[in-house]
């Protein structure tokens, strides 16, 4: 199913003030609007739209050698199918003459899209794929703004290391997609070095929604800490099963899910105490060198989407990809793909999202993860301590006393 969703931003080319206005910079992005990743795809799109709104309506364009160019992002719906992301990206480049690509949602889709960027020698910046599988193939044209998968639960383990009593027995339940396995492998290597003992370690097929059998197995090992490397639907299923089967760990952490509003609305009070790593939260205190501050960013999100809630890290990730591309084009002083690619490799700039800089593989390992907890139905940031806006509630109350 191919639906050209929207070309946002103005196509206006009229002159304004003293600065010249050049032709639009056309950017293509294949993104899930339907299928299992429709939710996250929609959030990513919002993030890109915040950036486009800023470039076109606040900045009046990206300045390239004194000439302002507005941006036009062409979206295509990949239907949450990674092979479609690649096909549509190719179409965007050849038929729609896109000059640059922004990445799709998810590691699998990003990995296939990266092949297209590589083949066509067009820079692709993405803020929604963190798996090592995207970056360990020696690609030269793909740049990821978010922290690598291996850092996802590292912050949680560092934080747990300082807790008293220490939750030393760890149960790991992991989905078997490349991103989740990256996260789990990192836990398997890092946890023992911090004195944690992994007492249960099981992989389940990606997308499994009946996990009560596994939760029952995990319970029989009596873990202090339950770590899930998976996705929103699995996080909800595990949390429900843990309550039903009275698995009372001191700490529950899920890689993906709790940071979205859906987790709290699906689970109500049962969502409390849950811990989750996050690429970004509105509590972070980075000093941006350009673009909005965190407060302004939240305000822009609420204004553009008539929302009351705060943007989550999927939204911010979408925005960050646009920012990296914008700054690289400006630094390159050109829209020539090769020059922009070189500028991306040298990029080092702090934004509301954190530092944007890429290592030799194109991955951003300069930006730390933060750790969130749900307290009374609200997301608060609890780690690292210098950005925390609340103290961790620990240990989690037994299910019977909630």
């Amino acid at each position: 199913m191919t639906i050209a969703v929207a070309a946002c931003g103005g196509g206006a080319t009229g002159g304004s003030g003293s600065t010249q206005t050049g032709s639009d910079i056309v950017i293509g992005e294949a993104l899930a609007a339907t299928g299992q990743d429709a939710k996250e795809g929609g959030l990513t799109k919002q993030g890109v739209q915040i950036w486009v709104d800023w470039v076109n309506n606040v900045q009046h364009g990206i300045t390239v050698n004194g000439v302002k160019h507005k941006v036009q992002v062409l979206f295509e719906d990949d239907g949450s199918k990674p092979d479609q992301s690649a096909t549509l990206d190719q179409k965007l480049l050849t038929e729609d003459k896109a000059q640059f690509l922004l990445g799709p949602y998810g590691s699998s889709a990003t990995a296939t899209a990266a092949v297209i960027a590589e083949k066509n020698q067009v820079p692709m910046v993405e803020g929604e794929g963190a798996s090592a599988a995207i970056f360990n193939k020696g690609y030269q044209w793909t740049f990821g703004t978010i922290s690598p998968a291996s850092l996802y639960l590292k912050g949680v383990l560092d934080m747990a290391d300082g807790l008293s009593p220490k939750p030393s027995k760890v149960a790991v339940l992991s989905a078997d997609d490349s991103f989740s396995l990256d996260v789990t492998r990192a836990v398997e290597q890092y946890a023992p070095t911090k004195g944690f003992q992994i007492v249960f370690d099981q992989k389940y097929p990606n997308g499994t929604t009946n996990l009560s059998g596994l939760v029952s197995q995990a319970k029989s090992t009596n873990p202090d800490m339950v770590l899930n490397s998976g996705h929103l639907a699995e996080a909800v299923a595990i949390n429900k099963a843990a309550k039903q089967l009275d698995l009372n760990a001191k700490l529950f952490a899920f890689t993906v899910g709790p940071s979205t509003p859906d987790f709290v609305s699906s689970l109500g009070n049962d969502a409390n105490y849950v811990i989750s790593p996050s690429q970004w939260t509105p509590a972070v205190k980075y000093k941006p060198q350009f673009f909005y501050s965190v407060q302004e960013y939240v305000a822009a999100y609420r204004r553009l989407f008539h929302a009351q809630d705060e943007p989550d890290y999927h939204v911010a990730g979408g925005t960050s990809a646009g920012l990296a591309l914008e700054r690289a084009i400006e630094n390159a002083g050109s829209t020539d793909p090769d020059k922009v690619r070189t500028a991306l490799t040298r990029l080092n700039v702090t934004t509301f999202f954190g530092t944007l800089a890429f290592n030799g593989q194109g991955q951003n390992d300069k930006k730390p993860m933060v750790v969130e907890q749900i307290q009374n139905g609200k997301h608060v940031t609890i780690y690292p301590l210098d950005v925390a806006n609340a103290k961790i509630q620990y240990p989690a109350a037994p299910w019977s006393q909630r």
Partner: protein
Amino acid sequence: MNWGEQIVLGLLLGGVYVAVGLGFSLVWGVLNIVNLAYGAMVMVGGYLTWLLFVHGGIDPFVGLPIDVVVLFGIGYALQYVVINRVVRAPFLYTFLITFGLDLIIVNALLLVFKPDFRSVTTWYSGAAFAVGPVLVPYIRLWSLLAAWALAAVMWWILNRTRTGDAIQAVGADRDAAQLVGISLRRTYALTFGLGAACAGVAGALIATFQAITPTAGEPYTLQAFVVVILGGLGRVSATVVGGMMFGLVEVLAQSAPHLGAGYQNAIAFGVLVLVLLLRPQGLLGRTL
């Protein structure tokens, strides 16, 4: 490993598969339609339950009759207006049309409900009682009982009412059924409506233990297929056995020694292949 709990959890999950399989089996057996929109209809049931729960404060189990009535209506109308036009056409046409319906229903749900994850979490949804070392979650037990009750009602309709006789007659020989005065259009629509009502119940049960999204029904079409093949086509009792067995196999496969949960699908479908080899008509199916 608490094997007792694993077995109980498997049987409880089986209840959901019974509900999922009943409607699929009926429509397949009588209309010879493999309904690819079945999972989407399960989700319609799930969303209806969620709406009733969130906006009407109606308990998911109390709301079951509403699910049944609404989904029956939708199913009846779909068959009467759309599918009846191709029901005598080759198999591929009904395949195509139900595939199209699946796309339409899923995308309509996306438009109306957005891709947000929803779940029905009642005040008792985490409560359980202990039988020795085994914890039995109430909500899963009630799901199992609801599925069995649904199976009993379906059995009664099919075997003890004139409507059921008509449905069975059409399933056996539609031309002969027409000769004795049975309205094919009406009977087809009734059958599809009953199938949809079962999907509605299944969706309601599913919404209580997992998060639902417009696309979350997809795997249930496949699972319904497997349940029906395992148990055998055309009998309520066969679906009950197929559903219970599939639930049990799925949970036990998660704890297969030396293999790990990653193999659960391989094991579950391996059992299916084995059944097909040894008893192609299914465990309780009539001889082909």
